[in-house]
């Protein structure tokens, strides 16, 4: 029979024999590296949470390196991107989205200023060479990622300068040419990238020829041809398509004479918005945008919203652009071959046979506006020359994530048909380069990031202090010219402070909550044993599965999963 000691002393360490872990019956905590919603929403595939974590630790250069692991052009996207990351940001529901866009721009500019080196090593002299058609954001991103992956890249650009639509279609008020050139030139200077200018597909080179000469071919031609536009078959003789007008203006600085009068822009996109603002600034008496989509408001569903960067819309309205939404041009009133007026009709929703609502003309709402010029701006499509047999209608429409349209042949960016942002083209360039590298190495296609996304209700916001979003200066309307950048930048201190607002959704903050609060000391603090990048491991011998750590984890990094026997 066991005898008890005086004062019931016990052998040390015996409480460790009580494996409280065997009480666990329904759930166990696990570390799950969820995707932050910004990352999930980023067309370029940036992991914003990862680079904000570097900034939080006070390492801007590491943050930039982490950023350019996905997107080599942060100085560009930090200016032109519609930043769906911010729309998705969980902090929206606390006190305003993180200023991801503005911090990205600061990092991009800082990299140029400080001369931080892109994290690439020169490819081997005999590394396979990938041909890339088009030096727009998609082609440049593809070239950069090829080099990152040990390949060489040879770019063929039809125009005399690289940049694609960044140069031809985005006004310097949004993207100053100094910022564009600085980032582009650093990228083009990387070892392993060759740029051939004035090489037009179909005239100087052919897809077949490239496929014979190069290890792989990446097609990033963009969309050069305006979509056909007419009003019930009628087209003015002196028609100027929006994108062409924009390009001409950027090249020559001049607009047709009719642009001095009352102008109607028909369409709804960033190009339409840019051309509206340029024409207004160039002296048009009035500029009116007619769009089938809706302006932001309680009656507009998200999928019905006009597809422009919100701040561009706001700035356009500040500058006096009139917008008539949920409307279309129903008739052109011509005097000879010249437009003198348009008939506008409102659109209403009607449920079609398939049950889906679509907008149809609302008879009886017609009205006539006197105009001097109509500018269609309804989108662009791939110029079909030189792509015979590869296009599926007006676009490539690849049936896979990587943009593969034939063995060793990929399509990138706007030419894929459903892209529409610089960030998407950059993302395409990266994914295609990764697929090329895998294909050339005889490997399977790379696997996409399948991590689950951390929703706002997965966070414990009690552990976050309130902090207001960094304010960003904007040029007053009166001071806006054709050249001066409208949106201001932020400084180092502001960028670092903004980084502290990142909630680190789904990632370990090393806050010690789990370690402190575990009633069974079943959380062990160790960076050596924690192989998942966190600072802790669970000791399931003692974890009772109470769920306290899951509840108190601020970021949702700890989640309870059903206990399997």
């Amino acid at each position, binding site marked *: 029979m066991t005898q008890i000691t005086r*004062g019931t*002393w016990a052998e040390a360490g015996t409480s460790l024999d009580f494996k409280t872990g065997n009480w666990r019956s329904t759930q166990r905590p696990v570390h799950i590296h969820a995707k932050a919603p910004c990352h999930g929403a980023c067309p370029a595939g940036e992991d914003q949470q990862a680079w904000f974590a570097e900034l939080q630790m006070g390492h801007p250069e590491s943050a930039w390196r982490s950023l350019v692991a996905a997107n080599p052009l942060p100085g560009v996207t930090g200016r032109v991107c519609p930043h769906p990351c911010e729309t998705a940001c969980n902090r929206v529901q606390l006190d305003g989205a993180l200023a991801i866009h503005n911090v990205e721009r600061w990092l991009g500019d800082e990299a140029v200023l400080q001369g931080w080196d892109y994290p690439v090593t020169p490819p081997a002299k005999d590394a396979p060479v990938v041909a890339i058609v088009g030096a727009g954001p998609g082609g440049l991103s593809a070239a950069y990622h090829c080099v990152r992956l040990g390949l060489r890249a040879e770019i063929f650009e039809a125009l005399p300068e690289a940049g694609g639509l960044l140069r031809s279609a985005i006004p310097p008020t949004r993207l100053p040419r100094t910022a564009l050139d600085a980032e582009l030139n650093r990228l083009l200077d990387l070892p392993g990238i060759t740029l051939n200018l004035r090489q037009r597909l179909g005239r100087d080179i052919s897809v077949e020829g490239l496929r014979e000469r190069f290890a792989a071919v990446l097609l990033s031609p963009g969309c050069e041809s305006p979509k056909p536009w007419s009003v019930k078959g009628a087209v003015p003789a002196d028609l100027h398509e929006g994108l062409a007008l924009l390009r001409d203006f950027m090249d020559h600085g001049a607009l047709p004479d009719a642009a001095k009068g009352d102008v109607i822009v028909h369409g709804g996109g960033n190009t339409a918005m840019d051309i509206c603002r340029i024409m207004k600034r160039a002296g048009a008496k009035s500029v009116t945008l007619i769009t089938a989509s809706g302006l932001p408001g309680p009656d507009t569903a998200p999928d019905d919203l006009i597809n422009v960067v919100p701040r561009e819309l706001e700035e356009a309205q500040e500058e006096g652009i009139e917008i008539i939404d949920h409307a279309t041009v129903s008739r052109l009133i011509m005097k000879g071959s010249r437009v003198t007026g348009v008939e506008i009709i409102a659109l209403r929703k009607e449920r079609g046979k398939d049950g889906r609502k679509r907008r149809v003309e609302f008879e009886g709402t017609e009205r006539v506006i006197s105009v001097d010029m109509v500018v269609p701006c309804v989108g662009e499509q791939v110029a079909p020359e030189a792509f015979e047999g590869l296009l599926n209608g007006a676009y490539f429409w690849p049936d896979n994530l990587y943009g593969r349209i034939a063995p060793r042949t990929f399509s990138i960016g706007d030419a894929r048909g459903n892209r529409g942002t610089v960030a998407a083209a950059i993302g395409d360039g990266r994914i295609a380069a990764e697929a090329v590298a895998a294909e050339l190495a005889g490997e399977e296609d790379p696997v996409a990031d399948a991590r689950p996304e951390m929703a706002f209700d997965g966070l414990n916001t009690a552990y976050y202090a309130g902090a207001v979003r960094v304010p960003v200066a904007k040029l007053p309307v009166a001071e806006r010219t054709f050249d001066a950048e409208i949106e201001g930048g932020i400084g180092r201190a502001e960028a670092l402070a903004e980084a502290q607002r990142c909630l680190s959704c789904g990632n370990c903050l090393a806050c010690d909550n789990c370690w402190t609060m575990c009633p069974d000391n079943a959380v062990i603090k160790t960076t050596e044993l924690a192989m998942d990048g966190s600072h802790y491991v669970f000791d399931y011998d003692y974890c009772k599965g109470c769920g306290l750590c899951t509840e108190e984890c601020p970021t949702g990094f700890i989640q309870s999963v059903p206990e399997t026997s």
Partner: protein
Amino acid sequence: MREALEGSLAIARAVALTKPDVVAAYPITPQTHIVENISKLVADGDMHTEFVSVESEFSAASVVLGAAAAGARAYTASASQGILLMSEVMFNIAGLRVPLVMTIANRAVGGPLSIWNDQSDSMAVRDSGWIQIHCISNQEAVDTTIQAFRIAQETDLPVAVCMDGFVLTHTMEVIDMPSQEEVDAFLPPFEFAGALDTANPRSMGTLVDPNYFAEVRHSHHAAMGKALAKIEEIDAAYAEVTGRASGGLLTVDGPKKAKVGIIAMGSVVGTMMAGREHYGGEVGEARIVKLRSYRPFPAKALRAAVKGLDKVIVIDRAISPGMGGVLGTEVSAVLSTLDKAPKVYNYALGLGGRDIPETMYRDLLTTIEAKDAPRFAVFDADLEKLPPEDR
């Protein structure tokens, strides 16, 4: 050397003579002067002790528990509400059989708030398993404090030395303070077989399941029983060194032929002796039993002490509302096994610092002469001060 000292200063010096390794205490009236004087001795370099200033009595008790468990001679002191705040730890100290010493400067327990003397605080922790020794004078308190350290380490039980607040703690008395040599000869260095040892790690305070808890309590109770002999033995040993004993478990004083006895603890014993001196001729000389060891309760010695008495007055300095006296109830229980047990008259006196004058001796003896004398009363309560319905 004889010296006129305030009770609290005398206790501080007595504690210093025992060379404790750790003292932790939180000030509370009327204990404050004890701790103040100890901290002064430490600050002046006259006492080499780790003095831990804590933020509450709970911490004070916890610190001395930890210190003693780590093998240190440890001391604390408190009173009243402080004792109540310590009470959880006091049960642990005793239940874990950790030897250490505390002074309880007896004070009433609120509410209503009272800072004055009675013994309801030590009575409230009566069942915590501590040895409780009551002192009638500051000399006894000094001697008992020194003895308490030896009792604790020879029994593996904590010892509370109870002394009446203000009546003793704040009173000047000529004290014969033993010398350091005498104390060193009497009190061996602290040794605790259960002390924690990093070379041989053990844990204390572990969970004890129902298969063993009853045995733990049995052994604790048995240890208290064995401590009776130790208390007597150590008092005698102290007398050998200093020439002065404190009265073992209890002392009987008065004529052998007396038919009335008074049983009491603490300073009221002295008051009764003075009362007998002045009013003995008038109301008769009672036999006075000074109960020194309250826990363990010296049942056998008490039965012998009342031999030949017809009536016994038990003075309580506390009350158990709904029952009556605490000490009186226990005395009745102990005497009930006697064939010719004296009648027990149990009176609560001097609650919340009410002065107990020498005339109380006369009043008590006169009262029990009446045939319908109450067996229990709050003796000195003036019912005129209460609304009629509350009397």
